[in-house]
């Protein structure tokens, strides 16, 4: 049983951090960052060519993490792999002791950096979850054929976009994901407590039972926030946060100190996490530091979060 499963299923506050494999085959930085995260998070969630930008595979880095003693969470999208390829990878993952996964539909290749690639989408996130759940129950593969031995079991998760119009569409799909076997749900990055609460309320009203982990993106600069607001679906950084980051940049310039906006971003993320934790707003957080994974321990420390 993975640390994340143990934590969430026993009612503890779950903490995961996201990490991207390199665009290359030198995993040194990732493994160094992972060591910093070890003991601070319940799992390192490895992206599967996020934004459809080519990287080493999620499975590859997950294996490396596992070998380094850090618990990996395998992200699996339906973009590049048919059901056969996904199932084959999951069997291999299980052989390496990987037992926690996150199913995503995946960004389309045309928005990525290898636009010629053929989009597959044999299965969407719900389809991937269903396939794995069926395998677990029947000990059979995606074609209904008996596996050699019993099927591996995965602690399964999925994602949701809480700021979406009409939100009912996301709630419906969330229900399908949970019915298909998702036990934990990571949200898209949220910055505003009220919209997070509104969303959690709707999930409650819809009587959907799952562990929700709020997505946290530590901001690095006002420009990053503005860029995400304009380009990343489901992201809405409030104006006052952008103003504070801008003020920090101006202050840094005046005093000749670098990195003030990044520090402020760390503070703001820590405050947000502490509030979620202290007020028991949801079951955990998923931190997407986008390359600045080394800041995650600081953020958690400032938020007063430790995992036992």
């Amino acid at each position: 049983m993975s640390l994340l499963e143990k934590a969430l299923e026993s009612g503890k506050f779950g903490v995961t951090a996201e990490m991207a494999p390199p665009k290359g085959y030198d995993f040194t930085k990732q493994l160094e960052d992972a060591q910093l995260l070890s003991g601070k998070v319940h799992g390192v969630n490895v992206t599967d060519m996020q934004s459809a930008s080519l990287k080493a595979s999620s499975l590859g880095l997950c294996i490396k993490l596992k070998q380094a003693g850090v618990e990996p969470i395998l992200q699996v999208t339906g973009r590049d792999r048919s059901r056969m390829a996904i199932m084959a990878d999951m069997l291999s993952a299980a052989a390496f002791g990987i037992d926690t996964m996150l199913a995503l539909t995946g960004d389309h290749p045309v928005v990525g950096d290898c636009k010629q690639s053929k989009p597959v989408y044999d299965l969407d996130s719900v389809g991937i979850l269903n396939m794995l759940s069926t395998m677990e129950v029947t000990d059979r593969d995606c074609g209904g054929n008996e596996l050699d031995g019993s099927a591996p079991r995965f602690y399964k998760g999925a994602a949701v976009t809480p700021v979406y119009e009409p939100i009912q569409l996301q709630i419906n799909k969330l229900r399908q994901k949970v019915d298909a076997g998702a036990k934990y749900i990571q949200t898209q990055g949220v910055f505003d407590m009220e919209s997070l609460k509104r969303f959690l309320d709707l999930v409650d009203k819809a009587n959907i039972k799952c562990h929700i982990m709020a997505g946290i993106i530590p901001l690095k600069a006002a420009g990053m926030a503005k860029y995400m607001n304009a380009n990343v679906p489901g992201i809405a950084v409030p104006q006052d946060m952008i103003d504070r980051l801008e003020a920090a940049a101006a202050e840094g310039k005046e005093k000749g100190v670098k990195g003030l906006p990044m520090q402020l971003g760390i503070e703001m993320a820590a405050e947000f996490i502490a509030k979620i934790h202290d007020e028991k707003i949801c079951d955990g957080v998923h931190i997407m530091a986008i390359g600045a994974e080394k800041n995650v321990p600081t953020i958690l420390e400032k938020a007063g979060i430790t995992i036992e």
Partner: protein
Amino acid sequence: MIVTKKKPIEELMAMLGDAKKIAIIGCGSCATACATGGEKEVAELKKYLESQGRTVVATAMSDYCCMNLTTKGKVKGFDAAGAEAVVCMACGDGTQVVAANVKAPTYPANNTMFLGEAVKFGLFEEACHLCGNCVLGETGGICPITRCAKSLVNGPCGGSKNGKCEVNPENDCAWIAIYKRLEQQGRLDNLSKTRADKGYEDVAYPRTINIRG
């Protein structure tokens, strides 16, 4: 209908190589509606080829190039007329029917784009991917296989922004459109059901249907 787009004329000329005697066939249905292979376009191509020093030995129109029975008779005389090359101004299907019925090599004048709807004159939108197992009854008559850029069957991805698709912001998100249509029809409960995975067995191609028993 099958929506076609003219190939650049240079590409067609390159295919024709130095063939001197050419026959042209147009199509009375889809290609006429797309202005890629109606009588007008056949006459224009004839004129162009002649201006390039080629001889057009025969022209014909088939009501449906894609129907063997209709087309066979129309191209019958092409070889006898001495055609060294045949240009078909229909879709890829029509072109294959023509190619099977003449000895001279047949070349496509058009690129075949999609099965879609003529929204208004000159505007065509892709509408059906011929998935072999139609779900329109559950989705308010809007096809998620085709209108959603990821062919998602269980609801939207998280990527739509302002109702538009993440893949091409000129397109409406199919799932938001489906939602609105079902809402209007009071059938939103359709969305909470997970659709059975229909798989891809039905689209293993080439497919043949025989209703002759």
